């Protein structure tokens, strides 16, 4: 049964009712393509904010450039849509100087791992106390579908018409190796698991990364895996294994091997920011004698 637009508009938006207070509804409709997965992340994140027990006024979102980066513009939170590749250092500056805030970066794979790869590496190494939701759609959607650092080898993209000949980052594997406190991977089909993971991320002291695998209509078209087909595969071909060997979980969107999801890593170690606050106490305690 198909509905007319007028009929469709009369249906109450029950699925988004709960998060209305966190949406800039005056900005809708959003810019994402039909069948894009990013909107699901928006919804799940907003639900997690409401359930986090942290005042939404203290939740800050930061994003870079690209499709995923537009999320901050639809959230009624303090939100900063900054330079391409640079949301992580921006978030680090904000979190370091205002430790009471809960700062989350939500951006794409090209933004955070290709142009912004150096910042990702060092924020993970320093164990900066920020949350990173990295939406991986295997290509640069906004600019027409070029390849990036997470494009699987062999993929066809706007700039690899003969097949991609580079390797791709395995996000959980490198994140763990770099020293992140928390590492997880979910798909946009796994809403409940993703939300739980985001809620857990809010409690972590240190660099917390969730890779969210998402379909992209551009990537899908060129690689014979339309978004709905990919969503089906997420249901049929994903394996949840929290104890997976991270070195073996490269993504293969053609699903020749299953996509491994899970909450892979949670380490209790102090962040840069926690250590710096202690450092201030130590220095000021010692300085009092000299003053």
């Amino acid at each position: 049964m198909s509905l007319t637009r007028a009929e469709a508009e009369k249906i109450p938006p029950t699925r988004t009712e709960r998060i209305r207070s966190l949406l800039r509804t005056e900005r809708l409709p959003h810019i994402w393509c039909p069948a894009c997965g990013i909107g699901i992340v928006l919804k799940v994140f907003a639900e997690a904010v409401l359930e986090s027990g942290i005042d939404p006024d203290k939740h800050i979102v930061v994003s870079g450039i690209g499709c995923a980066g537009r999320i901050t513009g639809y959230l009624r939170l303090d939100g900063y849509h900054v330079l391409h590749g640079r949301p992580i250092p921006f978030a680090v500056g904000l979190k370091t100087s205002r430790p009471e805030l809960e700062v989350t970066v939500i951006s794409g794979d090209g933004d955070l791992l290709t142009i912004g790869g150096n910042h990702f590496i060092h924020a993970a190494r320093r164990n900066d106390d920020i949350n990173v939701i990295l939406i991986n759609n295997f290509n640069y959607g906004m600019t027409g579908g070029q390849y990036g650092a997470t494009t699987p080898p062999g993929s066809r993209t706007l700039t690899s018409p003969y097949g991609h000949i580079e390797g791709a980052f395995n996000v959980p594997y490198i994140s763990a190796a770099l020293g992140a406190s928390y590492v997880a991977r979910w798909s946009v089909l796994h809403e409940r698991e993703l939300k739980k993971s985001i809620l857990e991320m809010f409690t972590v002291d240190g660099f917390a990364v969730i890779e969210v695998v998402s379909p992209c209509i551009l990537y899908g078209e060129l690689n014979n895996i339309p978004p709905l087909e990919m969503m089906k595969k997420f249901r049929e071909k994903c394996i949840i294994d929290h104890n997976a060997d991270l070195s073996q979980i490269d993504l293969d969107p053609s699903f020749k091997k299953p996509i491994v999801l899970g909450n892979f890593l949670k380490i209790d170690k102090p962040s840069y920011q926690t250590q710096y606050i202690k450092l201030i106490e130590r220095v000021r305690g010692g300085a009092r004698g000299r003053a």
Partner: protein
Amino acid sequence: MASGNGLLRPGVYFMRGNDAAVEGALIAGCRFFAGYPITPSNEVSARMSRRMPEVGGYFIQMEDEIASIMAVIGAAVGGVKAMTATSGPGFSLMQEAIGLSAMIEAPTVIIDVQRGGPSTGLPTLVGQGDIMQAKWGSHGDYSSIAYLPNSPQEMFDLTIEAFNAAWKYRVPVIVLADQMVGQMIEKVVVPPHEKIQIVDRKRPEVPPEEYLPFDKRYLVPPMAAAGEGYRVHMTGLTHDERGYPTTRHEVSKWLVEKLVEKVRRNEKEIAMWETYEVDDAKLVVVAFGITSRSAKRAVREARRKGLRVGLFRPKTAWPFPYWALEDIVSSGAKVLVVEINMGQMVHVVREYVGKENVYHMPWAPGAVPPPETILEKITEVYSP
């Protein structure tokens, strides 16, 4: 040395320029520093790393200069006064983010201790080649402010001015020092703190539901900080007064004009300069930063020889105090611009004084032009 609150006590000190800038920044309220190592600015981050915890502030060394300036912008939107320090190559890397700072009206302070260029150039030697970059370095139309200290004392004073201007006008502000001024050690007087004027952000006076982050009624809108409940959206995209992206021509026109007018309309209040023996001068030397000190000696020598020569020293490159210079040379005096580059401020001077009477002494060997060399040029230009 430090008082109970960790700030440098009033008094007379023998201090390096880069260190004086740090103490000025802390007194101005700077509580966050992010930087990346680069010669000849390293004394700034070294001292910041030691001093920040003493005043309850935060220091972080980032992975590069792009990250440093982005962290500074991040702290600024949180309402925390923040700065970074660098030199030419790092300043080049920061340019895109300087545009973001201007676009979202996040107040930032950058100390650029200039060295010889281009490229890696002369890391340990003096240069003045970032004059144009300080104004035109990022793409598109925006405004910045740039100070030109010529002593450790001015590294202290003008860094305070830089913070005040940044937070008053919500713009990126650059302290355009140079290797000599940054690394020389001289007398620095720290006045009683209560005599130092400190400017803070104008805060919103309306409840969050009425607040517009880029309210059209203001040239410089009141600034809500992150976490204060105003739920702002800020973007580097062209945006309306709600902070929302738009491609509407009239909104773009309003935004870009405002970003430029913020400084242009206040140029007389912001600009600073100094003159020496200009009243009857037939030739006015224009020099700034460390070069002004050599030029002053040359002017004094010229006077001794009976030549009517004066010195005009801009203390702000941007806005350039053109009206003051126009006034001085209105009697038809010649102008000689001396700078440690192949020609940057001379273009600004020619824009206002005209091409006819403006002479240039470019100097780019990684050293300050000696007074006697400037004097030779003065003599040559004075009576051709």
